[in-house]
């Protein structure tokens, strides 16, 4: 019958697939959607300029990527992990347990997190991290009775500080699955949270409670989860000039004609300020490389050469056009050496 022949064909293809999976001639990277634009840019140039095939880059999120990356050694597993935060201890242990012993950690640069508003907004926003915390945290210290936590009572910015405009608090931001959200919570909210001494003191006593207070974002409508699509946030800001949006610096960079970044602690989110570590909301970005795969999959060493070259991640490299904030020259030199000599990560 025709049907049985088709099924047989499918089974044969399956068998052939298993055989083919045993070799792979292209580099395979997974991980953060924040690092994705940078790794793909390098991958594309690498594919065009060398005889190697263009690497495949999957956008899975940092956590999801770590799971795949740490699953084991072998061509069915990824070679490179893009991360918008440092690898966690638990992830490193998982990696080691699965035989991924030597991991090379390369910092590639910085990303800024901006709170932006429409160019049409009547106010020039100038926020402190404390104000951001008071506006967006789930629980804040009671102004009447400091030392006690209450559900966030603020409806307008003016209620937080008389210098702020008298408009309702409405901020569009990424959902909990996003690395940008984690970084925002860590840098902005925790940064503001720490300004309350007694909360800061809890950190050493009760880490869990500290994190719950400082990373908890309110769920009463003032913070609107806008999905992972940052372009959508840009559109929403345009439609309502009284709102703010949270996203990565590259979106601000690409949309300067429509949106402007709020100053945080008096510093404007510009390329120069983030590069000079003046702007408080910036985070490092990493790639992790499986040393065991160098030599197993062709081109990894050359790919890292391209990634860590001055024309890629240098002060005027092509990655800066994509919104990556370069590291200072000395730091670049340090990580270039690590990449060239494939010095594995000892411990965190």
């Amino acid at each position: 019958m025709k049907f049985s022949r088709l099924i047989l064909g499918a089974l044969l293809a399956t068998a052939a697939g298993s055989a083919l999976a045993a070799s792979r001639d292209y580099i395979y990277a997974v991980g953060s959607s924040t690092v994705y634009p940078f790794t793909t840019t390098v991958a594309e140039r690498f594919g065009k300029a060398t005889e190697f095939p263009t690497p495949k880059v999957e956008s899975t999120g940092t956590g999801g990527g770590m799971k795949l990356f740490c699953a084991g050694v072998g061509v069915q597993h990824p070679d490179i992990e893009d991360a918008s935060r440092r690898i966690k201890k638990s992830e490193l242990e998982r990696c080691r347990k699965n035989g991924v012993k030597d991991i090379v950690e390369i910092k590639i640069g910085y990303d800024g997190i901006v709170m932006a508003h429409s160019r049409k907004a009547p106010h020039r926003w100038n926020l402190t991290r404390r104000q951001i915390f008071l506006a967006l945290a789930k629980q804040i210290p009671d102004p009447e009775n400091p030392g006690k936590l209450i559900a966030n009572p603020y409806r307008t910015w003016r209620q937080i500080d008389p210098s702020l405009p008298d408009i309702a608090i409405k901020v569009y931001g990424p959902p909990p699955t996003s690395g940008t959200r984690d970084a925002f919570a860590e840098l902005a909210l925790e940064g503001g949270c720490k300004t309350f001494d007694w909360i800061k003191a809890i950190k050493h006593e009760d880490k869990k409670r500290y994190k719950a207070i400082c990373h908890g974002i309110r769920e009463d409508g003032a913070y609107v989860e806008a999905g992972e699509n940052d372009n959508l946030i840009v559109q929403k800001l345009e439609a309502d000039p009284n709102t703010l949006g949270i996203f990565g610096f590259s979106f601000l960079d690409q949309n300067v004609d429509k949106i402007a970044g709020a100053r945080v602690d008096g510093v404007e989110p510009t390329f120069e300020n983030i590069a000079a570590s003046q702007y408080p909301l910036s985070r490092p970005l990493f790639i992790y490389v499986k040393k065991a795969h160098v030599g197993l999959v062709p081109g990894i060493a050359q790919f890292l050469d391209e990634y860590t070259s001055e024309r890629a991640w240098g002060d005027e490299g092509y990655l800066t056009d994509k919104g990556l904030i370069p590291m200072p020259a000395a730091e670049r030199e340090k990580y270039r050496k690590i990449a060239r000599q494939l010095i594995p990560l000892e411990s965190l």
Partner: protein
Amino acid sequence: MNKTLETVQAGLARRRRRESRFRWYGRIAIFVSLAFLAMLIVSIVARGHKAFWQTEIAIDVFLDPEELTPPTREHLAKADLTGLIKQSLRQMFPEVRQRRRKRALYRLVSSAAPYQLRDYVLAHPDRIGQTVRLWVLAGADVDLYQKGYVDPETPESERRIKDYQIAWLRKLESEGRLVLRFNRGFFLNGDSREPEQAGIQVAFRGSLYMMVVTFALSFPLGIAAAIYLEEFAPRNNVWVDLIEININNLAAVPSIVFGLLGLAVFIGWFGLPRSTPLVGGLTLTLMTLPTVIIASRAALKAVPPSIRYAALGIGASRVQTVFHHVLPLAMPGMLTGAIIGMARALGETAPLLMIGMVAFIVDPPQSLLDPATALPVQIYLWADSPERGFVERTSAAIIVLLLFLGIMNLAAVLLRKRLERRW
């Protein structure tokens, strides 16, 4: 008698009014849904149609023999082609001296220009030593400006394209060196980080391969299952009922669940490579199968029993009855069901996310086992990209996806027309 007539007469106007009201509700409902559809299509076409055109710039490049010989792929990979492009731009605008301005000048052309130069040299090695006019892709910012996406009223500091760049463009335009051409790259290239170089070739092929796999598996399997369940399976059997209920439930399971299943079975168990159209097609087959079975069973049910009795009556066996008489009559309905199921599968991203097809892939897949993406995945990836140039590409990709869907549905209609038999 008179009384009845009176009652009828009295209620008649009301009944007629009710009927005409109902007709109007129907018309309004159709009008509203058509209006939404028209809004969707108009907004997508309005945003996307310009992506089918692409700004190109003519530059005069001196094909320096020192740099370009021998004209082999290996040698040209190392040659400083970018330098040659930059040199020709500097010659066209000798007045530009400032470092910052020079960088802006180089950005007029796309970063693909050196590769276009390479391809030109490979195709015309005899021109080395001459100065040739080469049409290269314009940079994304220039392209957006030429297409009118930049409002010249906004203050210069808030624009990605500055006044002096606009002056260069005017000069190029007056020399006939700046034109909008049909964007072939959009159909021939794979994904790219640069909007002006990005294309749907990988996604299109990925979708096509997946549809072939899905059809080749789900159609025969679905029909076989439907025929058995409808024509041969014992009635009122607990097991058959159980299977039937399960198939109906499966048809309503969210597609992401099939993605997880595909990940566990095809990648985890069988060890098939991730991100490939084969795995994608198999996963979508799982998703489509229940729909095909249900539609095929409905088609079989619609064949009147008299046909079966007549066949059995003249001595046909049950298999002969089914394959000679029932199946040909049910075929159009089955095909429609299969194609509707596949049209749904064509638009899916969620299950593909789990099996690694949401990826950056530049090289077009040569077989079912090369990594690929799919059209909806490409749309999702572009919609999420920071570069402004991807906005129109996203809409253009949606137009292509809609056309793909339209062709599939048209095929369904035509096949049904051809195969339809009346009795």
